[in-house]
């Protein structure tokens, strides 16, 4: 009898604890409010830590919603003038040395961007988490001294690269501080560490993201946001193939 009472008490406590967790969808919505925007213009630096050397790439990106993105490489000299245009699910690259516009499609989208730990698919994936995943908060942990919710995400969109994700979300600022991306098989594919979180306007935003492709050796790729502006007007011509050759 005592044993039954103990089990009921324990289940009640666990239920009460779980009830204190926020709704997964609610939390994803809060994250999207920080991370997503109507449009944005940002200048970033990508530090790629290769096995032999580290190299740095600078670029400027214009993004409108989830479907349109335009990137121009500013540095190094060899990459200067290289441009990438994403429209819907298509990606084109222009290189001034060849004066060619090349469409990147199929398995090429899974290739690394400039030798980094990011693939073209990673760059193209910019939609809201709530549009792609259902979420369950599974616990709490501390990351870099910040209290975080641990959330398990499961994709409900079939044609998505990462079928599962695990996020460690800052409880106060609603920003992920760590992300793990999984394949359908459960294999860990990528891990990111987000840091230098700053208040930009009304939102919290990470200035620095360390990407690690877990399928290859290396110290990962740092993605640093130098400057960022949200919801600024971007002329439509930017997102056209004509602007690639300009």
């Amino acid at each position, binding site marked *: 009898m005592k044993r039954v009472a103990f089990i009921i008490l324990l289940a009640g406590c666990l239920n009460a604890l779980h009830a204190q967790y926020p709704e997964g969808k609610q939390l994803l919505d809060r994250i999207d409010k920080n991370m997503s925007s109507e449009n944005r213009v940002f200048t970033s630096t990508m530090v*790629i830590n*290769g*096995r*032999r*050397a580290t*190299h740095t*790439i600078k670029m400027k990106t214009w993004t409108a919603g989830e479907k349109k993105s335009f990137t121009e490489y500013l540095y190094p000299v*060899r*990459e200067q003038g*290289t441009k990438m245009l994403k429209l819907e699910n298509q990606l084109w*690259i222009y*290189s001034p*040395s*060849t*004066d*060619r*516009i*090349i*469409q*990147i*499609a199929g398995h*090429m989208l899974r*290739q*690394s*961007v*400039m*030798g*980094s730990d990011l693939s073209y698919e990673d760059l193209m994936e910019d939609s809201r988490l709530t549009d792609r995943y259902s979420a369950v908060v599974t616990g709490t942990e501390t990351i870099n001294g910040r209290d975080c919710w641990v959330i398990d995400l499961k994709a409900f969109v079939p044609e998505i690269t990462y079928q599962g994700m695990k996020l460690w979300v800052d409880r106060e600022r609603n920003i992920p501080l760590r992300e793990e991306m999984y394949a359908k098989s459960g294999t860990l594919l990528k891990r990111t560490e987000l840091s230098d979180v700053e208040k930009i306007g009304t939102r919290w935003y990470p200035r620095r993201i360390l990407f690690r492709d877990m399928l290859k050796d290396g110290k990962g790729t740092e993605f640093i946001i130098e400057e960022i502006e949200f919801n600024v007007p971007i002329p439509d011509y930017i997102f056209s*193939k004509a602007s690639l050759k300009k």
Partner: protein
Amino acid sequence: MIKFLFRGLLRDRHRSLLPFLVTLIGVMLTVVFHAWMTGVIGNSIEFSARFASGHVKVMTRAYSENAAQAPNDLALIGTATLTAGLSERWPEMEFAERIHFAGIIDAPDSLGETREQGPAMGFGIDLLSGNTAEAERMNIPSSLRNGRMPEKKNEVLISALFADKLNIVPGDVITLVGSSMYGELAMHNFTVSGTVDFGTTALDRGTVIADIGDVRDALNMEDAAGEILGFFRTGVYDEERASAICDEFNRVYNSPEDEFSPLMTSLSQDKTMGFLVEYSGKLQGILVALFIMAMSLILWNAGLLGGLRRYSEFGMRLAIGESKGHVYRTMMMESLLIGFFGSAAGVAFGMVISLFLQNHGIDLGVMMKNASVMMPSVFRAHITPATWYVGFIPGLLSSQIGSMLSGIGIYKRQTAQLFKELEQ
């Protein structure tokens, strides 16, 4: 005596024809099999050496661990000095720098936008300096199907099958999209000077061949190369010498602590070719042993049959006073004559077939349509000095052993019983 026995064999064909034919067929099969296997293994080794492994190969330790993926970010740096040093130290070898690369070949439409795309693997070899025989070594001039060899910068050869797939003809401009040595996106325009047909499905599916200088420009690999291949100037792989060169090189240059230190490997240390190199050396011994065993059994059987058929003859000869030893010795002499002429005829027939296979070969391309390894599609036999005796000597020995075994029955005959047997 020999003349007497020879005449006997010719006059009584029942005595000689079956063992003669068995020896002839056995020797002929051995000769053809030996020439064919030597050819097939030799073709594969040489093909692989020319295209991929060289007689020796220098790579960085890190590159060698993933060589199949051609990881150019782990390539050798400062190759001009390294190659010059190698050539000076081992003048009996010719060293050639190569870059293997993978990427996408993009064919544009009239507006310069993507019309067709396909995955390609490429070879950057010395085509334009005029100092090496790389093009001939890879059999490129004779593999040309259309157009001409690259004669100036940024000209490229493309495999004919790949060109057909992408609707490319000589004179078209194509773009290579790949990764530079430092991981950057690399895009480079080439003009197709010609198409090649290697007759090897793995190569013909999607190969581009460009001058190593152009590939260096395209992939940002100045004074770098994925690998340096070394070939004996004699053209013949010498395992002992190659191993000695590798040992000496690795003692001086290689450091297990530094993953980018150069490492030299010989053809026999190649993961796929090592087995074949080792196997080719043992092939002759295995063949001879198998042949002697099989033929001895067959000829023993033939001898037993002959012995049974000649049971009365031997009895008569023993009855009229011929010694058992003499009967046995004449039988041995007869089998020696049959073995000699059967083996000689077998070698002659085998050589004719082998010569045909050596000159014309057999196209097995259909069987290797989806092969991912580099193998020639036309295999040819190869006649070596060993081919002449590899069948002849065992043919002679096995007919002799067969007769020796079956002839033992002569000594078991009881002289006292002979007349009784003859009366029956």
